[in-house]
């Protein structure tokens, strides 16, 4: 199934892209998706712990199971002022 991911703030820097459309297997959770996408990053566990995920128009827990057409946003904490 197809999903859309958008990367907010540091994720755009860390992953080098701002968004992508992706073909993923049925039954994939947000956490599994996150771990796939951040495979090469250091501090991955701390990042997961401090990141929230929005799906379509609401925040969702990372055990949310993705559905066809979902639009997911990776939102890290942002502190600049």
């Amino acid at each position, binding site marked *: 199934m197809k999903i859309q991911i958008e990367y907010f703030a540091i994720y755009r820097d860390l992953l080098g892209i701002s968004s992508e459309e992706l073909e993923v297997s049925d039954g994939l959770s947000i956490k599994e998706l996150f771990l796939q996408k951040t495979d090469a990053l250091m501090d991955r566990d701390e990042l997961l712990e401090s990141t929230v995920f929005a799906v379509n128009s609401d925040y969702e827990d990372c055990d949310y199971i993705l559905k066809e057409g979902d639009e997911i946003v990776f939102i890290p904490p*942002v502190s600049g002022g």
Partner: protein
Amino acid sequence: MFSKEEKNFYQRHFLLDDIQVSGQEKLKKSKVLIIGLGGLGSPVATYLGAAGVGSLTLVDGDVVEASNLHRQPIHNYQNIDKYKVYSAKEQLEKLNPFIEVEAINKHFDVNLAQTITSKFDLVIDCTDNFSARYLINDACVLFNKPLVSGAIYKFEGQVSVYNYKKGPCLRCLYPKPPSDSLVPNCAQAGVLGILPGIIGNLQAMEALKILLNLGVIQEKTLLYNALESSFKSFGLRKHKSCPVCSSKATITKLTAIHKECKMNTLKEFEISIDQLKEKLDGTNPPLVIDCREHSELEVSRLSFTKHVPLGEIQIGTEDLDKDQEIVVHCRSGVRSITAINLMAQVGFTNLKSLAGGIIAWTNKYGME
């Protein structure tokens, strides 16, 4: 209640059915706490002052620097080195002589939070670090104050209203603060000057709506992406086990937030200016690396340093002996922590970050 001059000043508000004289009176009686007078605080204070919020209290312990001005237009070139709160107060009093502005020239800490939070109708978080953000959130929950929070990163920003009528708070979303070194701030990452102007004005707008009980107060996070010219918003929900605002709360009084961050463990990776001086005067001085950008060297540079900018820190140090003692410094001691983390990843074993950076060093030892 309004003088003839004030009526003239607020004329266009009076014309709005949703404000009129009664709404303007509400604003005049309102007390708002603005924490941080940088990129976000500049528009927030300017527009709330102009709108006629009767009492503004400004809190910030920093002074104006030239590199602030591209995004902090409440300050000006003549006020460089002046405390930001006094610089902002001066500007606000010129703009609107009918409001009261109180300036507190220190960083928001537990003591200050404890003493002043209860006095306000509303708090606005315009700070630039997680320790302050979590302390402000906790204070607003414990003193039951609505909080309008804004944050920026490079070309993106977000605005949230927390704890409005006991609604969701920052910790419902992000229960624990991440380490400040995980996410760079403006000094490290850079920021487009106009961005905080937009995000700060969105904060000011939400603040005004709360004070006037106007429209729909957003229980959501608004994300703005300047490069894509897009806004997105996501509904906020109270978390049933939020550590500060739920029935299962474990945080029941204010404590210094940095204890929860990595700061404790960071101490062992830091070296003080005095310790470094002693080592440099000794028989086996460490190699000192300056990890600031090229442009910063023109302002100040220590003669005994090797220069490797943060962005090239792994490549630029690959020929060095991985076990030799190395001290990394930046401007104030934040970027150098990131630098030693990056160097540790490629095998360096004996690293320290200079606490306080070149600022602390030159204050005591000059540019020797």
